[in-house]
């Protein structure tokens, strides 16, 4: 505001001054100054240099302190000075450079006479009120912003400015007023832009600071307190800091200073933590189908807006700053925010809190764009272990939780998969596919074969339930358009198309025999082309093609998996920074405990039939494991599960459950270490041995693959998290204590024991364990009678066992339950699977899309799941008469939903809806469904979606047959 005023005045002055003889100006200036000096000296009783200033700044020359002791300065004199000064400033501002860059005469005078410093002292002598500060700040702001010659090079200008700045910064005890702060930040901002334009000034700033004692980059230090400020002041400060950051990229001194002498990075990172703590721990879920924080959601949460501002600022700093600052900041964010704040938040005790944190994490990952920062977040998810479980595994395990948490977790994974990050994909899926154990040996050579004749597409489409067959019920509003296809290849060039509703731009279909064609399929093809193309472009930087030969399956056999995992490629897609930073901070040990509790997530019945130990890492961690859990362990589990089933909403009980699971886990370790050592497989121990020596990781981490020391680790990890855990003694007492605990808790629960636990190794970890036993009920009820006995763990554990990983199996098991899922869960599921299917890596592509591939009997394929869904739907439609009408109505509802979403969210919000569907109704605005199918008729919606999903998959398969084979166009 003040700035505006100044501008106005200045404009007027310019008109007056232009063309005025410089000598005249000089004379006027001197006269004014003489008047000012008169007043100044009149009130300066001590004419000698005292050299002491209130703030303790060494102040040379010009004046002394103590004016206040000599009475108030009369107002008229003060305003007279101000008037003169104003005029003088205008004269100074308007003065041109002298010849060959020399000072103009007025500036020279100012420098000689130390005008500015004396004015500053004068303002100190009067009561140094906020008004005074404002006046001075505005004065400099005007001078710096509008002077025609460089002023800051001159110490007599710079020094009082620095003194002013430091006196305005306000002490913790007496913070400056908001107005002063705003003006101060504005001036600092201005100074920063001068710095970026004229780096030579930078030196001076440093030197001036040196005069005051420490090498101190005052401008920078002054800005730091405003980093996390909300509103325009904060924004201005951040902008100014960014200017300095950009400067640091080229100037080592600045970079070094910021990295070594300031608290910039810690302040930024801990500020994130602080702001995070003020975020709501529970979100009001606006609607049932809510699954992630959209722009309009977080805009309404001021605390979240503020957090995101700071996060975006970090992002920007990392983008422009010197690598040393970037690395430091990234390290602090990992160690100061992600690990100490976000990790525990992801493990809060209620579903709502965990759900909220998951939604935040998803949002953060979507907001962050800078590779180094994204890398940090991903490293955190992939590598960090909380309570001995990798964050990723915990997150995967939550996909199968009921309520919103599962949905929000799905949304998070949709985000993660959409990053095209090699490491993410490797950990989630590819590492399970690389050994090629999921397919018959003979199939390895056809892995890279492509589907020349769209056989797979045809097989997918052939799964279309008869009740949805396009011949029987044409989809409403986008009916099968009859396109006329030519019979003759030559001659008949009369080109028309019958229905102009779709694709009016194509008028080239040749008339001939007539055929009905599902035109919506064209949209799927087009979308598939785009999505595969995007994916292929992004994956070009991947370290390997994942085609069954590279990485070589032999090296990723479970026996060697540990080693292979260690040498796995670093995150390559999008994220380019090296992992140094993370290595410093987070435990990068990936494989020793890479996938604890993976087994529990495998819900497939088919898997249950598998008699072998599926996960080598599991085995490693757990050490030798009994074939059949002893009776008392089974009993324990049953009770514990019962507890969890009945109580996970109650916070307190939840906590108990966690404790129970911890106990179970510890007990298991005990058992396996002590009693069952004899039954260990030679292969297993060999593996352990061979894994150890090559480990170059930090010794405590490595030792965790050792049975005995694991107990300690667990205890160690447990200590900070929950005090009562650490109190649990080791050894025989444990059992007794545990049973006491169970007894006391069991009384509270009344739900029947029910479980799908499969492996005796599974209760290795409390976190995953806990989550994994919250399955969808239908899953559970499939085999209520045999909660534990379903998996006969025979002795062939050392062998490679087909297992496609927890992520795939949890996705497929949720997909299998499609008819009972709500619409939005199904949209997410099919969206994720479609995105996965778009990946060009032959391993993934063949697993998901090649319907001719022969897999191991124990491996469930996407096609099998879809086929079983088709059967379910066929049965359903056979038994319910109203099914066809409901289907049509549901199609109407879905179309209406899409068009309304599109209207309200604009074209960019495709992520909320099924991508291809978004296009399908482009030309059908404002559809009103006639009959609303209630959303609890999930099977109806699921059937519609199922049919569309088949088309989507078929389209992707078809596009793969073409795109994946071609070298990418530049």
């Amino acid at each position, binding site marked *: 505001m003040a700035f505006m005023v100044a501008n106005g005045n200045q404009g007027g002055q310019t008109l007056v001054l232009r063309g005025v003889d410089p000598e005249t100006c000089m004379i006027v200036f001197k006269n004014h100054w003489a008047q000012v000096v008169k007043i100044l000296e009149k009130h300066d009783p001590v004419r000698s240099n005292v050299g002491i200033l209130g703030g303790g700044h060494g102040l040379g020359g010009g004046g002394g302190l103590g004016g206040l002791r000599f009475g108030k300065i009369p107002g008229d004199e003060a305003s007279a000075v101000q008037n003169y000064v104003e005029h003088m400033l205008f004269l100074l501002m308007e003065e041109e450079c002298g010849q060959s860059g020399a000072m103009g005469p007025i500036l020279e005078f100012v420098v000689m006479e130390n005008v500015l410093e004396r004015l500053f002292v004068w303002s100190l002598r009067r009561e140094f009120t906020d008004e005074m500060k404002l006046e001075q700040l505005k004065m400099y702001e005007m001078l710096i912003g509008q002077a025609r010659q460089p002023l800051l090079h001159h110490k007599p200008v710079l020094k009082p400015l620095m003194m002013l700045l430091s006196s305005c910064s306000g002490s913790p005890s007496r913070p400056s007023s908001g107005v002063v702060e705003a003006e101060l930040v504005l001036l600092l901002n201005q100074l920063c832009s001068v710095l970026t334009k004229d780096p030579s000034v930078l030196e001076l700033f440093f030197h001036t600071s040196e005069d005051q004692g420490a090498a101190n980059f005052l401008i920078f230090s002054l800005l730091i307190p405003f980093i996390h400020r909300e509103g325009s002041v904060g924004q201005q400060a951040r902008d100014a800091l960014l200017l300095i950051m950009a400067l640091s990229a080229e100037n080592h001194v600045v970079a070094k200073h910021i990295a070594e002498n300031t608290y910039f990075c810690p302040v930024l990172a801990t500020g994130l933590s602080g702001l995070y703590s003020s975020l709501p721990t529970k979100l009001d879920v606006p609607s049932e189908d809510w699954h992630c924080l959209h722009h309009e959601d977080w805009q309404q949460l001021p605390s979240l807006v503020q957090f995101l501002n700071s996060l975006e600022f970090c992002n920007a700093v990392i983008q422009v700053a010197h690598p040393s600052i970037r690395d430091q900041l990234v390290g602090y964010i990992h160690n100061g925010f992600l690990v100490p704040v976000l990790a525990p938040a992801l493990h809060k005790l209620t579903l709502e809190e965990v759900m909220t944190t998951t939604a935040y994490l998803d949002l953060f990952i979507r907001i962050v764009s800078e590779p180094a920062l994204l890398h940090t977040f991903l490293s955190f998810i992939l590598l960090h272990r909380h309570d001995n479980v990798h964050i990723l595994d915990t997150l995967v395990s939550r996909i199968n939780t009921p309520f919103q948490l599962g949905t929000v977790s799905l949304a998070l994974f949709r985000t993660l998969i959409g990053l095209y990050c090699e490491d993410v994909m490797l950990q989630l899926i590819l590492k399970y596919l690389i050994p090629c154990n999921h397919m018959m040996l003979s199939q390895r050579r056809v892995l890279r074969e492509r589907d020349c*004749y*769209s056989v797979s597409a045809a097989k997918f489409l052939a799964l279309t339930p008869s009740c949805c067959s396009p011949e029987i019920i044409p989809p409403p509003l986008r009916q099968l358009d009859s396109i006329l296809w030519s*019979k003759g290849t030559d001659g008949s060039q009369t080109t028309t198309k019958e229905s102009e509703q779709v694709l009016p731009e194509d008028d080239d279909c040749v008339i001939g025999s007539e*055929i*009905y064609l599902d035109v919506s399929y064209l949209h799927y093809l087009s979308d598939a082309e785009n999505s595969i193309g995007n994916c292929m472009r992004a994956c070009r930087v991947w370290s390997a093609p994942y085609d069954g030969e590279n990485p070589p399956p032999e090296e990723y056999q479970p026996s060697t998996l540990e080693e292979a995992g260690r040498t796995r490629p670093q995150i390559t897609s999008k994220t380019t920074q090296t992992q140094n930073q993370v290595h410093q901070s987070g435990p990068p040990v990936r494989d020793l405990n890479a996938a604890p509790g993976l087994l529990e997530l495998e819900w497939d019945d088919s898997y249950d039939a598998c008699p072998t130990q599926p996960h080598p890492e599991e085995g490693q961690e757990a050490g030798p494991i009994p074939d059949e859990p002893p009776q008392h362990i089974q009993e324990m589990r049953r009770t514990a599960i019962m507890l969890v089933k009945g109580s996970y909403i109650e916070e307190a009980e939840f906590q108990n459950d966690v404790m129970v699971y911890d106990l179970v886990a510890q007990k298991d370790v005990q058992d396996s270490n002590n009693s069952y050592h004899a039954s260990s497989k030679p292969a297993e121990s060999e593996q352990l041995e061979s894994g150890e020596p090559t480990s170059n990781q930090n010794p405590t981490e490595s030792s965790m693959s050792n049975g005995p020391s694991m107990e300690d680790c667990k205890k160690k990890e447990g200590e900070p998290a929950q005090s009562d855990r650490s109190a649990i003694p080791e050894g025989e007492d444990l059992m007794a204590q545990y049973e006491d605990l169970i007894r006391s808790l069991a009384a509270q629960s009344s739900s029947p024991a029910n479980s799908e636990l499969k492996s005796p190794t599974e209760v290795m970890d409390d976190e995953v364990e806990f989550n994994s036993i919250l399955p969808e009920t239908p899953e559970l009820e499939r085999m209520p009678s045999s909660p534990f006995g379903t998996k006969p763990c025979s002795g062939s554990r050392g062998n490679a066992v087909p297992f496609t990983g927890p992520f795939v199996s949890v996705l497929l098991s949720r997909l299998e339950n499609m008819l009972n899922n709500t619409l939005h869960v199904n949209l997410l599921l099919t969206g994720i699977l479609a995105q996965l299917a778009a990946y060009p890596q032959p391993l993934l592509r063949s697993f998901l899309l090649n319907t001719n591939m022969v897999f191991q009997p124990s491996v469930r394929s996407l096609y099998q799941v879809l086929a079983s869904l088709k059967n379910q739907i066929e049965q359903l439609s056979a038994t319910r008469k109203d099914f066809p009408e409901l289907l049509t109505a549901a199609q109407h509802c879905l179309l209406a939903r899409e068009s309304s979403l599109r209207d309200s969210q604009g074209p960019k919000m495709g992520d909320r809806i099924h991508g291809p569907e978004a296009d399908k109704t482009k030309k059908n605005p404002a559809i009103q469904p006639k009959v609303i199918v209630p959303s609890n008729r999930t099977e109806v919606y699921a059937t519609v979606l199922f049919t569309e999903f088949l088309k989507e998959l078929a389209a992707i398969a*078809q596009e793969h047959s073409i795109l994946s084979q071609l070298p990418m*166009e530049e």
Partner: protein
Amino acid sequence: MNTFWSMSSNVGLKRSDSEEQGGQGEQRASPARPPFGKKQLPSIPKNAVPITKAASPATSAQSANGTHASYGPFYLEYSLLAEFTLVIKQKLPGIYVQPSYRSALMWFGVIFIRHGLYQDGVFKFTVYIPDNYPDGDCPRVVFDTPVFHPLVDPDSGELDVKRAFTKWRRNHNHIWQVLMYARTIFYKINTMDPLNPEAAVLYDRDIQLFKRKVIDSVKLCNSHLFDQPKMDDPYAISFSPWNPAVHEEAKEKMFAHKVSV
């Protein structure tokens, strides 16, 4: 005899390789291959209606091993596109093809013969693919101008492809093999069961006269080079005389590309 291709695609490849070596010098002199895929791959159906004609609904439904005639055309379209990408991958020497704009079942092509009896011949041709592809007969190859050759019908210009592909086998036979075959006949002349008995007899009995006839035929073909394409199709291959204003830039790009590679 008539099983040139049914032996195995490898044999065919080997032969062409050895030929390749024979004519390498020449080949180097020929302009660098343009980025084939870029130029010729028709935009894979953006929102385009597939430019194909349908197999009759009944057959396509059958071949699609399902019930959905609606998708039959898509399968056909993509099978042909896949074939086309295979052609591109093969980088057949001196052969350029491009599917018609109007139908994916019709491809326009041109063969440059760089040595041998037919040296300097530039033969335009059209490939017709049966609409029940890949379960039907083998594709037909018809030269725009009937070349004087024992295996080329002197009236229709059709090449005797069937002798090499007695039975078209999906997954084994591919269109690039047909194109390769169309090139091979100009280097290895076969006079058994000719479509042009005159040429066959001359080749066996009076090679000099045969050569003269071939030279005349090559001249005739080349004299029609700048004719309008027989088919009025946007993607038909047409030649135009050298025009620096139009071609110089493209040529420079090609050579620059070659150097950089």
